[in-house]
């Protein structure tokens, strides 16, 4: 089963996590065959939000919601069940300073 692990945290705190440590963990997950993808993100200051309403595109500066803890990156993983996903998520280095939200991924329902 696929899960997305969303990494949230205060940017200051997240910046304190060494990239090398994150890269090593990503490598480890790849070797275990559970890593499907992922990406750290640039600071929320660089975010742009786009909405389309009645055909009209509006573009605004900043994230869709101003919160103290921001999305800092994500992992897409393959896990047997939620317990394994929790185990993988608890190894993600920023989990020490921020939070990891685990969401089961779904497939688009294109049949009905």
């Amino acid at each position, binding site marked *: *089963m696929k899960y997305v692990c969303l990494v949230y945290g205060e940017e200051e705190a997240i910046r304190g996590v060494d990239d090398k440590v994150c890269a090593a963990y990503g490598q480890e997950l790849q070797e275990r065959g559970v890593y499907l993808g992922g990406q750290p993100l640039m600071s929320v200051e660089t975010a742009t939000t786009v909405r389309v309403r009645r055909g009209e595109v509006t573009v605004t500066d900043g994230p869709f919601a101003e919160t103290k803890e921001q999305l800092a990156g994500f992992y897409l993983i393959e896990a047997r*069940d*939620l*317990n394994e996903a929790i185990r993988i998520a608890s190894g993600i280095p920023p989990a020490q300073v921020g939070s990891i939200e685990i969401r*089961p991924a779904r497939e688009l329902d294109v049949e009905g």
Partner: protein
Amino acid sequence: MRDVDGGFDALYREHAPAARATLIRLLGDFELAEDALHEAWIVAMQSWVDDGGALQLPANPRAWLISTARFKGIDRLRRRVRYREKLALVAAGEPSASEATPEQALVDATVFEDDRLRLIFTCCHPALSREAQVALTLREVCGLSTEEIARAFLLRAPTLAQRIVRAKRKIQSAKIPYAIPEAADIPMRLEAVLSVIYLVFNEGYAASSGDALIRRELCLEAIGLGRLVVDLLDEPDGEALGLVALMLLSESRRVARTDARGDLVLLEDQDRALWDRELMEEGRAYVARAFATGEVGSYALQAAIAAVHARAETFEATDWAEIVALYDLLYEASDSPVVALNRAVALAMRDGPAAGLELVEALLRDDALKNYHLAHAARADLYRRLGRREDARVAYRRALELTELEPERRFLSRRLQELDG
């Protein structure tokens, strides 16, 4: 015929919970398992009687029930639309070759035990909210009806039903496994299970409003659950044992702790002849077992304190030195200001009210307890014992301002009146 009905009720209580747990594993679906069990039970009620209308049981009623329900469940799956995928899942969840045929495996008691433990850990999975954990555990593990649980928690039945449905949906879609946690995760996961059990117990034990019978039932369910967990665990666990001990010792004082009007009776005023000696002895035996594991936490320590009280013939004869020593350990384990308050009260019994008052005053300067009515009530009581009536009055009034619980208000008002009288 009545006897047969009564017999069936007892049989259901005896076999349904374990059968449900195994069926959830075999069918991979809570709802399906429940429906299948229900159908199988209807068949059982027809086929477990002989021509004369007397009970005539199969050799292994539980295995019979599970195997009948399993066929009913698979039948139901066949009638569903996307049954192929589901069937594949059920087949994948089939007992492995080492367990031989399912029917053979069903006779093996350890399989039932593992299934019940799987069910408990799944219902108390930390990915579910505490409310959902409690509702699911009572529904699936204890087999209480949605209406019964709703009544016990003073909730509307639809609210509770929805809570259960949502939790089951999360189990299914986030794929919370039907599994006993790995050894490394057991302590953390067990803590959640014990919290759920203690919450159920306290809901039943709290002297607040509600149907007394249902509340009693909740306490008994919690004790039953605690015993079940203790029996099911491979390794004896100090906290699981401690929790059962604590519940048994609390339950043993149930009758003595409220008066005819439903008001709280303090430990020192309780009629100790009303204490249930049998439960108490059992509770003390569990305390001993908990301490024998060499790893005691806050449940076992609280139980040990309750056991010291249980041992005392009168309030005055209580071994306060031991109680203070246990509170010292409990404070270390829990670091809770409420424990510090209880410790101060015990210390006042050991060393006199003046020594206790000094501690309570210090605690009241702390933000955590500043507005806690029981801290003010404790201070009031110590003033009273020191003969400082006016100070006591002020403190009781402050305590009264801080609580809305009716029984506690009545108790505090009574104390105030006694001071004036």
